[in-house]
């Protein structure tokens, strides 16, 4: 379970208020989609949620653990796939996975079993001894996904995870999201692909200009907009256009 209460974040470098008094709750066992136009505050929210950025105010809880005061315990409860897979390019893939497993203190047999299963599922078993710097963006993304699951976390946080993935890997990723949800684990991901969110998510949140403008299921969203059979994409554009002051 992930909970954000009144989170705000202004970047000191340029004074931009990226997130403004944001509150959100992601329940156990649900797949939660985080949607918003470019620059809406999605990545900043996720970075605050994972401790990569310090919030100016507000509170983040992971499985009931306060991220500020129980930092390490809270961080041990999630796996994170960032928006940029440019990680440790000088390490070999297996060295990176072993590093992450050491950080999460994953026992030897579990790290081997999970690496074998996940690397095989994402088709990167044969490049584990290669340098990450030689990988394509998609391969790096797959490696990040494998690394994020090496501790079998109760919460899985992904920022634009489909970017760079081939169709088979994107399909596998969605399957894993469903499996984890069925097992009672939380999946939180941001995306620009409305079709993915529409098919996959139990609930969604729409963020614009640093604030949440909708949280709920797709049915609730449709009901709010007159109960028609509009697609999520149409509803999303309607909402964000309205925020911009009436659209085109």
């Amino acid at each position: 379970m992930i909970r954000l209460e009144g989170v705000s974040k202004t970047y000191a470098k340029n004074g931009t208020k990226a997130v403004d008094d944001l509150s959100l709750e992601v329940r156990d066992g649900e797949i939660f989609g985080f949607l918003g136009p470019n620059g809406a505050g999605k990545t900043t929210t996720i970075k605050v949620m994972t401790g990569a950025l310090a919030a100016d105010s507000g509170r983040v809880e992971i499985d009931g653990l306060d991220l500020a005061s129980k930092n390490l315990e809270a961080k041990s409860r999630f796996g994170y796939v960032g928006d940029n897979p440019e990680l440790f390019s000088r390490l070999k893939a297996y060295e990176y996975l072993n590093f992450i497993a050491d950080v999460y203190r994953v026992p030897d047999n579990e790290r081997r079993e999970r690496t074998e299963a996940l690397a095989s599922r994402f088709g990167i078993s044969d490049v584990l001894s290669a340098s990450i710097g030689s990988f394509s963006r998609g391969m790096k993304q797959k490696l990040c996904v494998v690394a994020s699951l090496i501790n079998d976390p109760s919460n899985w946080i992904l920022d634009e995870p489909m970017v760079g993935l081939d169709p088979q890997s994107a399909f596998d990723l969605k399957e894993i999201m469903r499996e984890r949800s069925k097992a009672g684990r939380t999946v939180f991901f941001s995306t620009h692909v409305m079709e993915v969110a529409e098919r996959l998510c139990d609930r969604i949140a729409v963020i614009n200009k640093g604030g949440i403008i909708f949280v709920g299921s797709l049915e609730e969203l449709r009901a709010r907009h007159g109960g028609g059979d509009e697609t999520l994409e149409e509803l999303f554009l309607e909402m964000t256009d309205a925020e911009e002051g009436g659209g085109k």
Partner: protein
Amino acid sequence: MRAPFPSLLRFSVLATYGLKGRGAKDEGAIKPLLGQKRNAATFKSVAKTVGLAILVVLLVADFVVIFFGTNWAMYQALKPAGLQGLLILNAAMTASFLVFFIGFATALSTYCLSSGESLLLSLPLKPKHLLGAKIVTVYLSNFLLAFLLMATAYGVYAWGEHPGPEFYIYGLLSIIALPVIPVVLSYFILVPLMSALRALRNKNAVMIVGGIVGLAFALAFNFAIQASASRLEDSAWILEHFAGPDAFLAKAGMAYLPAFIAWKASSSGLFGGALWSLANLAIGAVLAALAAIVLGPAYASSLSRFGDVKIKRIKASRGFLEKKLKARSLRFTLFMREVRNMNREPVYFINGPMIVLLMPVIVAIMVLAQGQSLGELKAMLAGLGQGPWLMLIAAASGAFLGSSTSITCTSISRDAKVLSYIKSLPIPIGEYALAKFLHGFSFSAFGAAVGVVFIGAFAGLPAPGWAGALFMALAVSAFIDVLGIWLDTANPRLSWDNPTAAMKQNLNAVIVILGTMALLGGLGVLAAFLKLGVWENLLAFGLLPALLAAGGLALYPRYAIKKIASLES
């Protein structure tokens, strides 16, 4: 609308030299005012600019002093024989030679700056324009080098001979023309090489080859300067080696037409000088255009294949995973990450651990090139062995080498790309920071030992002196390492495009290198002033810095946790 070539050239110059274009300035002007934060940023950028300007002035002044001394000695030696005009020929030859090496290294390291550059190939740009812009860009920095070197010679000549104004004009035209050919020649070598050898078409290979070329050049240049410095007072030697009919300068000068033309331009009067100068400019322009037209397509083709990598594919067997995936302590795993990231990145390795091995080689070359009797030097150092002086010299050597790796003072900057991710992991930031210190200090300890052994073995330092020198060297190195990691945590360079900027072009590294020199110099003066005994020296220059380092290190994690949490990378 601007023609493509000037725009391309502007892009190339800005990207290569990391300059900010006019647009960036405009953008800064329209940014909202942020009160004190903006003032602080302005102060920081002004301080940075002033610091860099001082460094550039010091560096340029250093070279001017070297070149001026050499040219003045030559002028004094050649003047009595009426051959002082050879000064210009010598400067032209030397400038062409230096520009060839520096130009080659620059052309190599800027051949393909980033993947963004290969995107240029998708634009409707002609290959000759792509290479032409590159040649002009590399030429610009080499023109400054040639100017520095040749203007000194022209200045010395003018000081003594009071020539007419045309001397200065033709001199400037020669300085403009001469660097073109060595730069163009570099591309005539590089483009076919890059086209033929796939192994060269990647960032690492370029870094390694460039590093070796640069290193060989630096050592050879150092040797030449040191060797000639010891001969400058010997007029007979200068005459024999520079003015004799069999002298290398005479032969090479006659063979290398542009240098010969530059020499003639300075001594052929108003009309003749103009013709020679124009001839040199024409040769340069024609060769540059020819290179762009002939080599352009091959250059564009090699650029499109730059960075092609072949991934090593080996099926990970159960045995492989059992062997490789093993739990280790968090401290060890963080330490190993530091070691691997540094040792496998050529620019980090060359400017970090490699320095420890390189410095003694440079010092040895300086000593050998000076032609001094090693026996005399050894006897002089051995004579100090009765008191604590030899131990202090060995300690200073160790401390200098131990603190010269720039590892701790760039440790946070080097992680700028992954800092955000690191912060999302359950890693105690104190442990993370300690691993960085231990990594830096492990190389400092090695450097300190090498430095002490270097002097100790050469000068026959008595056994107890070795231990004392090593203790002091380790203590001072540790103290500087602690200062370095504090500095880079307080002011890391978080925005960079290539690893060179994170380490080699990091202001923190410059501050620590210069600060170390000042500190060691200050300690040397202090030691000479205090004239302490062995034990007092150990307390003052060993125990005290060790305690300061320990205190700084003890306080550091708390600061690092707070500061790193606040970084927005």
